[in-house]
């Protein structure tokens, strides 16, 4: 246990970086997922096909390969993911004064991968909205966009919140991979280097990493269970 206390700053720093990574990737994934979900239900056949293809590809490929692509193929395209260098965010990427693109690559990989699952959760939510709602909206002359914006999506969010939550939990867990793909100083990377570089005993360090992840995932899971139970009673 003393190992955890001795290196508390390392764990805290790792936790903080992982949290930032998860937060940014969750925003990205929600955006991508919503766009893809709208594409999949849109009246335009090519968009539907594109959305379906996206979901098929990213749901069936291991996250490891997605990470490989964002960490190796993006540089090959001559991109350092500079479009993500939004002023406020830039400080996070600039750790110790050096610009490391790997944090951005990790955000891209996680967002792309999770986006497919978000899309499916949202679509399940959209399917849970009673048919009459969409029909009534159409009957009073709302266009497809208005229909989604004012009638379907506000209700779909509610039905989708539990599946969305489990997708986000899965994403937090998946973010552990980032440490093995060049991101320096996140929870898994800093713990791993404590063991392999500094030669600390494995078990206490792993327990420290585990606590870090459990702090993020377990409360979310409990919250979701509660929401789900409330829903069950309400219905």
């Amino acid at each position, binding site marked *: 246990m003393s190992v955890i206390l001795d290196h508390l700053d390392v764990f805290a720093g790792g936790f903080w970086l992982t949290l930032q990574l998860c937060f940014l990737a969750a925003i990205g994934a929600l955006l991508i997922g919503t766009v893809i979900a709208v594409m999949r239900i849109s009246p335009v056949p090519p968009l539907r096909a594109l959305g379906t293809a996206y979901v098929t590809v990213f749901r069936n*490929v291991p996250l490891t390969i997605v990470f490989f692509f964002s960490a190796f193929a993006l540089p090959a395209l001559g991109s350092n993911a500079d479009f993500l260098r939004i002023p406020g965010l830039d400080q996070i990427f600039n750790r110790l004064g050096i610009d490391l693109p790997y944090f951005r690559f990790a955000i891209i990989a996680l967002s792309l991968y999770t986006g497919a699952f978000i899309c499916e959760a949202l679509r399940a939510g959209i399917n849970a909205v009673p048919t009459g709602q969409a029909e009534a909206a159409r009957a009073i002359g709302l266009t497809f966009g208005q229909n989604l914006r004012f009638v379907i999506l506000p209700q779909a969010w509610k039905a989708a919140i539990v599946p969305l939550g489990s997708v986000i939990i899965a994403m937090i867990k998946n973010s552990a991979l980032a440490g093995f793909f060049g991101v320096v100083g996140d929870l898994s990377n800093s713990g791993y280097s404590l063991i392999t570089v500094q030669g600390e005993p494995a078990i206490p360090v792993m327990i420290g990493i*585990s606590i870090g992840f459990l702090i993020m995932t377990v409360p979310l899971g409990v919250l979701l269970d509660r929401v789900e139970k409330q829903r069950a009673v309400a219905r």
Partner: protein
Amino acid sequence: MSQVSTLYDAPGPRARRITLITSALVGVLTLVGVYYFVYRPLDTRGEFSMEKWGPLIDPTDENFTALWGRLWDGFQATLIAAALAVLGSLVLGTLLGIARIELKAMSKRRYVGLPTPLAVLLRGLTIGLDVISRIFVEVFRGLPVVITIVFVWLGLPSLGVELGKLLWYLVVGLVLYNTVVIAEILRSGMEGLPVGQREAAQAVGLSTGQTTRLILLPQAFRIMLPALISQLVVVLKDTSLGFIIGYEEVLRITSQIVQILDNQIQMYVVVGAIYILLNYGLSKLAGYAQRRMARGPKTRTLPTDATPNAALTEITTTA
């Protein structure tokens, strides 16, 4: 899909024309964009040369046989690890799921008729086990699989447990995680069943264990089959994490090949495509299982068995 199409009117000739023209335009624009931002940079790096693709697609290439032989080895290793993990987690997950249900039911029992200290001891034991199993589930459900696998790989030897081959560390790590997931899937399946099932089973004199084993579990398996199969996809994808601990599965072998042939983009495209095909097949299987479940033997015989009245109500509800 029938639900989805209620979102908009069926497109008329004008809307179809607009769609066709804009998608053709956007398609051309995308092609141009892909050419300038993807093809050109890759081409200048020589990523489309036969030197890099040859070993993958040209049977006359000197490395072709060796490469696909290694990849086949890798996929075998991946599939073996996945199969072992699935088998282990199915068995253990079923046991854990049953245990969770049983413990939940038993912790409500008062053990009337037993001497007080024994009754208290038994109650304490069941409640304790209930709490422990719950913590076990929460912990391993909340941990990333990577961390579990690395934990097993680095942690077990320092506890004096040597598993020998790397395969077993990977399998144990995967089993730990998926056992918990499968147990939760089965548990929610059993708890989602109508209460009448359990009550009827008890009314005909089955014990709690028999009720779970004979009545609840088979139904939970049937209902949850799609979820179970999609969990198989997850296991198959997660075996790729063996790469991190150095298990020679397909990604590890791919990176070894990349070190020799220096064609990483090509290799990962091909391996990714194979993964997609495999997992897509499995998800199709899940969809097929779901459809089979939807028209199981019970619903199939319904129209002939049911009284006209019941058949009528069925028609009105499905319409």
